[in-house]
């Protein structure tokens, strides 16, 4: 009896350690536009597009970046839980290409409770409604691109790393 009980209880203790992955599903796309010297274009997390001192041109349609966060709690316990996570854009996202400088100084996201993401500052988010071993959320990130142009044009590809840390399972 005791031997049988130990065997059945041993399984959860051997469960894998929790793990977190984040994938970049889609780039933040500002599209094609012209600016004389300086201009900005904002693509929000919801997909709205605004601009200042730019002329939008045909090309790739603007749209927010999309990321998918996946948490594997490491066991199959069917218990509802929430996750407290932090989301961080590590540093200023910028690129200089010829006579064009592009800088993204501010981001926004559709993660609940987070209106803005500032480079270097983490934002905490509580993800509710997790139930199974795998808890996954897809979220979008928008931003404001500031462009300074002294000559010519450029294709800008600016790295946009996103760091997600699980602070607690609640």
């Amino acid at each position, binding site marked *: 009896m005791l031997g049988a009980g*130990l065997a059945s209880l041993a399984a959860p*203790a051997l469960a894998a350690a929790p793990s977190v992955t984040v994938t970049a599903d889609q*780039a933040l796309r500002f599209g094609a536009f012209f600016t004389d010297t300086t201009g900005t274009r904002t693509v929000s997390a919801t997909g709205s597009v605004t601009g200042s001192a730019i002329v939008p041109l045909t*090309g790739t349609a603007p749209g927010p970046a999309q990321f998918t966060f996946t948490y594997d709690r490491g066991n199959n316990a069917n218990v509802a839980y929430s996750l407290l996570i932090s989301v961080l854009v590590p540093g200023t996202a910028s690129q200089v290409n010829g006579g064009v400088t592009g800088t993204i100084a501010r981001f926004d996201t559709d993660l609940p409770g987070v209106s803005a993401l500032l480079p270097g500052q983490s934002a905490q988010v509580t993800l509710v409604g997790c139930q199974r071993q795998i808890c996954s959320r897809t979220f979008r990130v928008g931003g404001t691109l500031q462009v300074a142009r002294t000559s010519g044009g450029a294709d800008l590809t*600016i790295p*946009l790393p996103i760091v997600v*840390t699980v602070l607690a399972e609640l």
Partner: protein
Amino acid sequence: MKRGGLAFAAMAIATPAFAASGQSATAAGQAQAVIVAPIIAVSLNDLDFGSLTSSRTASGSITVGAEGGATYAGGTTAACAGGGACSGIAPARFLVSGEAGRSYTVSAPTAITATGTLAGGGSAPPLAIDALSVHLESHAGSVTSIGQLDNKGEDRIGVGGRLNVPAGTAAAHYRATLTIMVTYS
């Protein structure tokens, strides 16, 4: 024995509560944008109707094609038999520069007015220039206001027109301003 079993079970269920913190992951996303070089048009040469004569009794005109060539009508004739003062007859030409491969739209007036200075001094009555036509090198042989920049980011525009000369027009030198506008489309 049963009590011992229950104790083990309680510990196993509690395990997930300690499992989460500190796990971190990074996604290498990116942001993309295409900043397009400005499009500009530079005048290479003027629309030149050359030197011509007018009739005292019959109105006339000279038409310069957007791709070159001139035709006279009515009481207007060339002031020379070729070469000399007539050699300057030419459509206006503009060089358009911008981002390679992009299409653009050119806007040009359909008519303008030339102001004149009499040979002896003083103002001459203005002359009408109409039927202005645009030829885009990137659309050779077709009439369109939409061009495309080549792989060097260039295109050339020709503009022709018709200068209308009323009967009895006095000898004068005429000049007009022809402004075109190019924009990405």
